[in-house]
């Protein structure tokens, strides 16, 4: 049956070429489309995670929902002592965040001012590598402020300039101080760069009366894929119902959800191409089969069963699909691999979509063999489905009737 199928493929060249070409095109289209979609989503998430958000963050319950000083973590050391025991954690650091007004003589702007541990942040986030002018903070930076480039622009400040801070301390008292601009950062995230500034905790804790207190503790894991597992471990180790430990999936829920929606729309668009191609492959299969009814009639008359006929059609489509996908998959996979390493760059896209959190002009493809595998699997499935109607059509004829078919 396999031999016969192979001969039929060579004999009905037109149908074979059309089916192979369409399968080739749909395989390429499917793999590249999904790779581009997944790649751009992953890149958005990775960029956002790299900038500031931790793989896991520990909060006091209701800090995120209600907020305020009474929901600060009150005994940071007790928690960090426990975190030390978890091997999967690469680094952790408590952050103290507050909002205040930064002002110079002429201009003022609201800013989130965060007290950080500079040496630990070097490992936890991309704050240090985002430096564009001056220097990053260190433990002895005193009243140095590390400020976002857009915020600096708003306030019309330069390195070495002084800026007044007015806010409220962790105990609710009035807090004010003069900071000196020591460094400027640009992460590419417009919102972050235009509203955030950092001060070393060693100094900021004094000003804000925040020693051993924190808004939250941020964690970097040795392997981000283990986030859920490590999170469970943290929750059981903390064993404190007043604390909550959240993975990046919860922390960045809106981004994850919008990507899911985007993926759904992507699949809908892709399904349009797949449906049309499926129909055309089916039509070519049907046209081919309907011109071979006499042949199938003879085959049935000489003793071939319905199952054999199905096998014949199955082998034909399988051989054509294998040929087309064997050709298309390596090419598509190589393109994905190439653009994964050398992402497409569209100048200005990050600036244009800054409100949407796009921080890079680069659009990488995703290179994932599992994804490529299931993409090819879907193409096979569609091709196999396309022979069902032609097969049913042949079976609607009785063998003798088929041999007389004109």
């Amino acid at each position: 049956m396999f031999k016969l199928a192979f001969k039929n493929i060579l004999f009905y060249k037109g149908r074979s070429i059309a089916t192979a070409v369409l399968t080739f095109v749909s395989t390429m289209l499917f793999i590249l489309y999904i790779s581009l979609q997944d790649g751009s989503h992953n890149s958005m998430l990775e960029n956002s995670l790299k900038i500031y958000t931790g793989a896991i963050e520990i909060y006091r319950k209701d800090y995120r929902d209600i907020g305020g000083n009474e929901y600060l973590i009150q005994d940071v050391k007790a928690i960090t002592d426990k975190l030390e025991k978890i091997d999967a954690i690469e680094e952790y650091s408590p952050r103290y965040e507050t909002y205040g007004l930064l002002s110079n003589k002429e201009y003022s702007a609201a800013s989130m001012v965060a007290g950080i541990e500079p040496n630990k942040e070097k490992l936890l986030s991309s704050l240090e590598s985002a430096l564009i002018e001056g220097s990053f903070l260190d433990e002895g930076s005193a009243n140095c402020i590390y400020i976002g480039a857009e915020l600096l622009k708003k306030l019309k400040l330069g390195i070495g300039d002084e800026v007044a801070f007015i806010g409220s301390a962790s105990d609710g008292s009035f807090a004010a101080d003069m900071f000196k601009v020591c460094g400027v950062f640009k992460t590419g995230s417009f919102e972050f760069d235009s509203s955030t500034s950092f001060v070393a905790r060693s100094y900021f804790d004094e000003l804000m009366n925040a020693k051993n207190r924190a808004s939250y503790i941020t964690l970097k894991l040795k392997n981000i894929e283990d986030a859920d597992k490590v999170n469970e471990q943290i929750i059981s180790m903390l064993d404190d119902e007043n604390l909550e430990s959240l993975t990046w999936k919860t922390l960045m829920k809106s981004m994850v959800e919008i990507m899911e929606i985007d993926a759904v729309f992507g699949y809908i668009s892709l399904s349009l191409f797949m449906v049309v191609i499926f129909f055309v492959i089916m039509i070519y299969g049907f046209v081919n089969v309907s011109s071979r009814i006499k042949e199938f009639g003879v085959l049935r008359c000489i003793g071939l069963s319905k199952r054999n006929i199905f096998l014949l059609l199955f082998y034909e489509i399988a051989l054509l699909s294998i040929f087309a996908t064997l050709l298309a998959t390596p090419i598509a996979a190589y393109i994905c691999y190439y653009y994964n390493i050398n992402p497409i760059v569209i100048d200005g896209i990050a600036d244009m979509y800054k409100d949407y959190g796009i921080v890079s002009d680069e659009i990488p493809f995703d290179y994932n063999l599992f994804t490529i595998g299931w993409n090819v699997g879907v193409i096979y499935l569609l091709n196999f489905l396309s022979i069902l109607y032609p097969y049913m059509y042949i079976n609607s004829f009785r063998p003798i009737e088929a041999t007389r078919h004109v």
Partner: protein
Amino acid sequence: MYKLILKLAWKNSFLRRSRTLLVIIMIAVSMSMMLAIEGIYDGMVENMVDKNKRSDSGDISIFAKEYRINKDLAYMIKNADEIKAQIENMQGAQAVVLRVKAEGLLSTARKSSFASVVGIDLQAEERFGKFSEFLKEGSIDLQKQGAIVGIELAKTLKVGVGSKVVFSTQDIRGEINSIALYVRAIVQTTNISLDNSAIFIDINQLHKFLGTDSKNAMQIAIRGEDKELYGKLKIAFANLDVKSFLELQPMIKQMQDLMIIFNSVTFLIVMGVVFIGIFGVMYVSILDRVREFGIMISVGMHYKYIRLQIFLESIVIGVLGYLSGAVLGAVLLTYLEHYGIDLSAFSDALATWGYEAVIYATIKVSYFTTTLGAIMAASIFSVIIPLRKIKKLNPIEVIKAEK
């Protein structure tokens, strides 16, 4: 003669009924899906354009020359009220509003966030962009230090209707000044920057708070789709920064361009594949009947009539496919235009990114006309190669040949 050819074409189109039906179904399904996708994507962008125009920039906005670079109180449009009156008298201007804006810190007892206070005249805003339609909670009222807060800002600060908030910023003299406000309403404009950071208060109250002259404003927004209006305003107010909607919203312009490219590429791919489908069926259908055409030529029928018959057969299939697709597509689009795609399960995420939870489609006549043109072209071009084969036929040899 032509009547006979038409009759022949019609009958031959259904000679192989299953084949013809498959092609018709293929055209109908792919066309209706394509129309629905186009409608939804266009609807998303159009909705965004509409809400952005109504809530902020209008069709044209005017600023002081330096304001968009340095968002500072020093760069206000002087005598904005007089300019407004002047524009209102210009042909094509449908509505004009003045706005005053300042950036600062918005605080509750527990939380703070950066915010932009926008001073507005509620009645004028209602005429300008039906402001009340953005209402999500509470009532539109700015009396007695009332304020209206963008939905995302309200979420960030965890405030609701009735909450007290304090806005702090530098006034015109450079002094840090604060004002206590009461949240009367929460609005969702689906304009990300407004939803994330805007707090609307009465324009006169803001002037008083900032110490600015009540005749001045940061922005004059104008509704009016008259294309000449923009040019007239540019000339009349050369000393000011006159910007069209798309100049102010390059992202939306790019989104529109991307949507056109995406829809065009989708259209070309789908129509290309549809062409291959029709071609396959017509090719086999014609080659199946080579003997029949040979006989027709032998009995004296001119080639041009055979060509016409084949063209008509292909067009019949194309038209039937198109009509089925148009009906199916119109039904789908009408449903999506009225009920939309409900993504309420993701409403929070969508709001954060400036989209509404229900996405409605838009219907354009051009969807149907361009598709008709493309299907007709696909039908006609699909028979050109088979026709060339027929033209080269030697009738005697064809008749002699075994079927």
